[in-house]
């Protein structure tokens, strides 16, 4: 009864003082907050080390949640004095929830963060500079972790990519090209090569045309050669870009960009080898690929567990290269673990982040469950490549990480309204209302205005 009263009183006080407590306080473990209850609980036992509770928030599908629940169990076995309270939020609500918690001073000790949110948080001092903890641990061997991943979590007080580490990579997300081997066999066309530069957009298109078929003769296409060819990759391969982050200039109004966008749009509009936006709306392309009705389709490592269950053979190929530059590109995403700068237990929080990001056992477990390419280079190059599971050419993932992966467009942009507007209005090009060149010319000044407004 007394404890209850005390808790009520404390809660009321917290409410009155404007919710200035932090996460440690709210889960009832800060010494100042509950000495009363603690004495009452612990008089009989003599606990050896102080029990520490950490809050950890992430997002993802049920599969990811399951994997992290298991990883956290392993962590708790390794550090018996730490208890982790894990929350998994639906991805669409994640940023909203995290920002609200942060504004209320209750951000979790460890949480996922990347791209625009990471930039904002680093700038505002919401997340902890973990360099000093990294220097002390033997878990972190800089040569053995993908530089392309860790560099995203560096911040030098002004810009990203340089300076101290403010986060550790949860994963690297190479956006690769998967293909349905059975459809290739049926159409009697050779598989796409796994080495970059051997296949151009023209080869891709010709193959896709051969794969596209109306199997039951009703005049509607049943099998499409490809779907979801990513615009970003096409633009970068063609030598263009969305924005120059060093000068803050929107660069969509260039022939490189327009040609790439037209190529992607024409796949559906002119050549009909990809589902039209209407077809995609009806049955989403992922479901279509899974059902064996799409020849070539982009995937990330996190798709592996689902794709292992596919009833047909599949493998990875390199993205085709632009015929004008001979280069190829795709995006390499990443999520990071960050630690709240207000955490009461930064060392323990760091231990958790480091375990999830760098620990051999943790990485191995994560890899075996198929969620990600290991962050540890030696593990990726040995165990991962030879784990005997599909896809056969896993090297493509590593090639993307090492050679032609590109951070996603929003990386480096604190505010993404300009990009949302771009994506929304781009339907004019995807549906053929306007040509890419005309639309880009029209939209570029608007994007520039939005970019300046949100990122200055």
């Amino acid at each position: 009864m007394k404890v209850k009263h005390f808790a009520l009183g404390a809660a009321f006080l917290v409410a009155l003082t404007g919710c200035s407590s932090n996460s440690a306080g709210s889960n009832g473990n800060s010494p100042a907050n509950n000495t009363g209850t603690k004495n009452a609980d612990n008089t009989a036992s003599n606990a050896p080390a102080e029990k520490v509770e950490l809050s950890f928030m992430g997002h993802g599908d049920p599969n990811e949640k399951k994997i992290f629940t298991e990883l956290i169990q392993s962590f708790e076995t390794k550090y018996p004095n730490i208890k982790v309270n894990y929350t998994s939020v639906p991805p669409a609500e994640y940023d909203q929830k995290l920002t609200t918690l942060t504004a209320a001073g209750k951000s979790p000790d460890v949480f996922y963060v990347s791209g625009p949110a990471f930039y904002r948080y680093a700038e505002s001092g919401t997340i902890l500079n973990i360099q000093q903890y990294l220097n002390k641990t033997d878990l972190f061997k800089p040569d053995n972790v993908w530089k392309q991943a860790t560099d995203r979590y560096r911040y030098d007080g002004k810009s990203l990519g340089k300076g101290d580490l403010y986060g550790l990579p949860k994963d690297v997300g190479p956006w690769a090209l998967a293909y349905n081997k059975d459809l290739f066999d049926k159409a009697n066309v050779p598989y796409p090569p796994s080495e970059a530069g051997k296949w151009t957009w023209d080869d891709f298109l010709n193959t896709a045309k051969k794969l596209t078929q109306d199997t039951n003769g009703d005049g509607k296409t049943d099998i499409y050669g490809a779907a979801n060819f990513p615009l970003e990759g096409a633009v970068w391969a063609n030598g263009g870009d969305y924005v120059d982050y060093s000068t803050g200039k929107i660069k969509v109004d260039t022939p490189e960009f327009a040609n790439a966008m037209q190529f992607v749009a024409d796949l559906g509009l002119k050549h009909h080898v990809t589902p039209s936006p209407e077809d995609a709306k009806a049955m989403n392309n992922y479901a279509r690929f899974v059902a064996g009705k799409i020849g070539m389709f982009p995937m990330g490592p996190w798709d592996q567990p689902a794709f292992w269950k596919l009833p047909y053979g599949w493998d990875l190929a390199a993205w085709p290269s632009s015929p004008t530059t001979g280069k190829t590109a795709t995006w390499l995403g990443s999520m990071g673990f960050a630690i709240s700068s207000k955490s009461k237990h930064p060392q323990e929080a760091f231990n958790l982040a480091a375990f999830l990001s760098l620990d051999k056992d943790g990485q191995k477990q994560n890899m075996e469950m198929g969620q990600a390419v290991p962050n540890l280079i030696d593990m990726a190059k040995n165990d991962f490549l030879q784990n005997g599971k599909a896809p056969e050419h896993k090297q493509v993932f590593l090639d993307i990480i090492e050679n032609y992966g590109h951070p996603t467009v929003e990386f480096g942009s604190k505010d993404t309204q300009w990009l949302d507007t771009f994506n929304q209005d781009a339907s004019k090009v995807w549906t053929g209302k306007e040509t890419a060149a005309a639309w880009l010319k029209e939209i570029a000044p608007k994007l520039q205005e939005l970019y300046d407004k949100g990122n200055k």
Partner: protein
Amino acid sequence: MISYRRKEIGWAYGFVAIPVLGFLLFGLLPLIASGILSFTKWDMVTSPKFVGFTNYVNLWKDEKVHKGLFNTFFMLIHIPLGMFISLLLAMLMNQKVRGVSIFRTIFYIPVISPVVAVSLLWMWMLNYDFGLVNQFLWDWFHIKGPNWLGDPHWVKPSLILMGLWGGVGGNMVLYLAGLQSISSTYYEAAEVDGANAFQKFTRITVPLLSNIHFFVVVMGVIGTFQAFSQVYVMVPDGGPEYSAATVVFNIFQHAFEYFDMGYASAEAWMLGVIILILTMIQFRLSKRWAYND
């Protein structure tokens, strides 16, 4: 005696205090806060920066705000449509037929269903490829149905269609109450004078329901301007070319996707003022056509 009264007064204040405190904490305080915030730039992580009238000036120039307003005004179409259908239904449901209460219940069910559930249901119904609506159009009329939620021209009609389905039941009940309060003596007198059914409807029923029309219009306008959930669920990116986004949806995007609380607050105040003005106009106009006996 005195102490008894004092105790009673104490209780009275206690009960009054709860809603008053609730209003102060969750009504007035946020209202004042948003008013102040609308003059700042605040991303919820760093502290707010005072920017003067910048947010309001930007609102004037923001193409998405214009689109949101246009879409919202467009959606107002559903009010007269809904009124017509609900009145028709109410008159049907006013018949003295066996089992009529079952039909009243059926038409009222959508009203009490949560918007999110209804939206999810209609997402399936309106699906371009395998939705019930297009299936029906094809099977019965051999019409190739539109891509309801994927085509910028069809998104708003889709939302209106769904709004009608969900909204007519509530208005039907209001009209039903209104119909039952009209004294039968009016109709009898009209019959003596030789009025036909149509004349009775237009000269007696419609005008005598005027205070209900008024209520339905005012609430409908406010409701339309506050529409959010169905857009958020059915077309979470605001639809192709932002064709489905309402003002509140735009506010939500600024507040919880771009974390620009100041701008969102300014837009919310703009919306509040618009609703206030529209409601005031309606009250003014109502003096000309709405009767109050």
